[in-house]
């Protein structure tokens, strides 16, 4: 059995600054040993632990989809010791990745269903993974309608802008991009908070699942909207964040009641969460 604490060595292939405030960068990583890429077999919704020797490790959602081969991507917000250092690293630098960790979005349940994806701010990474996965020609027929509500405070803070534009042009996915406010006179998408836009676009709850990721305040105000639209708690899916160290359910810090977010999560339905303490 492999040592689950030992990161696979990876090389940074490219670094893209995603947002105007330069706080979010996307790192494209390539495994030094192609065998490791095979071992790193993941599903959208899972996360990995990024490891920088000398600095430490951080848990980050996987932004790529398994339908994309040859690399993995992570979008990293600059907050602490490791992420600050990571933001100064460059293409060619060596780091490590452990994973994939945790559960994923419940793809077996989502098959044959409509999927409503609701995201806010930089919590869009595993949602991007999910969208890319679902609209892949091999997979698209497995799902019904796909609606995406994605909001940021202003246009400059939206992630993956090129892809958002591409998806906008497609007919097999309904994009509802929104910003809280915009000073751009040419802004052609929605203006308004995510809960309001969700309410306005009113995706049907019929035969649907909602996946929601974003800042707590957005989730707090969107959940009532989803309930109003008719989504039952077991069909509202979210992904939690928690301080983590081991990522494999051993070190003990990321529990909510009986569940370890790193191993039993990070994906939970609202119904599951309602049976757990509110310690997150």
């Amino acid at each position, binding site marked *: *059995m492999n*040592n*689950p*604490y*030992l*990161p696979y*060595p990876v090389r940074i292939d490219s670094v893209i600054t995603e947002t105007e405030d330069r706080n979010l960068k996307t790192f494209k990583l390539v495994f*030094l040993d192609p065998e490791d890429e095979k071992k790193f077999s993941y599903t959208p919704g899972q996360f990995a632990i990024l*490891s*920088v*020797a*000398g*600095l*430490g*490790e*951080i848990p980050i959602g996987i932004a790529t989809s398994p339908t994309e081969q040859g690399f993995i991507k992570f979008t990293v917000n600059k*907050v*602490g010791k490791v*992420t600050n250092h990571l933001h100064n690293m460059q293409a060619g*630098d*060596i*780091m*490590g990745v452990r994973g994939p960790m945790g559960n994923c979005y419940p793809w077996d349940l989502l098959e044959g269903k409509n999927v409503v994806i609701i995201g806010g701010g930089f919590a869009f990474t595993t949602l991007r993974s999910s969208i890319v996965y679902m609209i892949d020609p091999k997979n698209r027929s497995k799902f019904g309608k796909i609606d995406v509500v994605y909001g940021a405070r202003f246009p400059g803070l939206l992630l993956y802008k090129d892809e958002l534009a591409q998806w906008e042009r497609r007919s097999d996915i309904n994009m509802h991009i929104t910003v809280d406010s915009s000073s751009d006179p040419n802004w052609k998408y929605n203006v308004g908070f995510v809960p309001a836009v969700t309410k306005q676009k009113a995706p049907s709850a019929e035969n649907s699942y909602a996946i929601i990721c974003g800042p707590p305040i957005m989730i707090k105000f969107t959940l009532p909207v989803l309930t109003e639209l008719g989504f039952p708690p077991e069909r509202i899916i979210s992904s939690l*964040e*928690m*301080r983590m*160290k*081991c990522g*494999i*359910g*051993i*070190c*003990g*810090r*990321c*529990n*909510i*009641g*009986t569940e370890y977010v790193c*191993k039993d999560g990070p994906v939970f339905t609202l119904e599951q969460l309602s*049976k*757990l*303490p509110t*310690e*997150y």
Partner: protein
Amino acid sequence: MSDIYIEKGNFIPGVIERLMGRYRVHGPVKNGRFHEFSLLKNAAEADLGFQNTRLSPKEIFHPQAERMFEFSLAKDDPQAGILKEADKDFSPRVVLGIRPCDAKAFQLDDANFITETIKDPWWARRREAATMIGLACDSPCPTCFCTSMGSGPYDTAGLDVLLVDTGDGYVAEVLSERGENTLLVTSGWSSVSSSVRASLADKKKAAERSIAGTFDPAAIAKREMLELYNSPIWEEVQFACINCGTCTFVCPTCWCFDIQEEVYEDKGERLRMWDSCMFPLFTLHGSGHNPRNQKTQRVRQRFMHKLKYYQDKYNSGPACVGCGRCVQACPVNIDIRQVGRQMASPDCACPA
């Protein structure tokens, strides 16, 4: 498996020396005011007349701090930034004189470290390398409550051999093949005389009787998780707590750890060390948000994890063996027996 007998004069130093010739032997040693488990340097060091050690022997399998990986940061090193496993000694070892409660505790810890899908390699290999030679308790401490936690002074769970002190000698109850094989290198054993054998059951009963009952963990298992979580008891339980990590560090079933990097010039290493749910830093997010920001939450987490979450998660007894160390060591006398009593009964008014 069989029972065998040895006179004390043949056990120390004889048996221990033979074991030391073949194994690393960890045993109880008196160090200042307290006993502690340490790697024996000579057989005479071992003091089997101890009550129990101040710290649990978990250090043997889960060192307070251990090196996980090493790496180079030298600019000209092509391997720079790539983590390498640190060398470790997994040679066969004997844990001699471990109390039955502690041996049982490591079985409970196994549920955390060794699962079907993921194995903590260091814990697992150290466990595999160890023969556990237990020592039954004939004079338990007033803080002991193992019998309420599904263990007992003569419990054989997690042991390969159980030694029973009969005054002049020891009866060794050999419980596993590993135990039998380990004792093969030793000599001086004889069969157990009928009079000694006859006394064993009474000794066991007497020891069990001397331990007071406390609370019933099964009653806690039956209660609703959220009801317990939201119970008003925590407000009073938490007041005295000063949020030090003493209870968790002395506990044999507290396994939580932190992972840290240390860098010395152009090389570094990744270490892991005991951590404690009592520390606010334990759950502090990078963003500054802390889901267990309040002392009440942290105190509740410790007791809920031991007595409720673990039972629910593994469908087993509690993650507590009743060794009583936390009761003895808590600087402000927070007593898990009292807390357990309150958790077990919905309308338990209070302690004392």
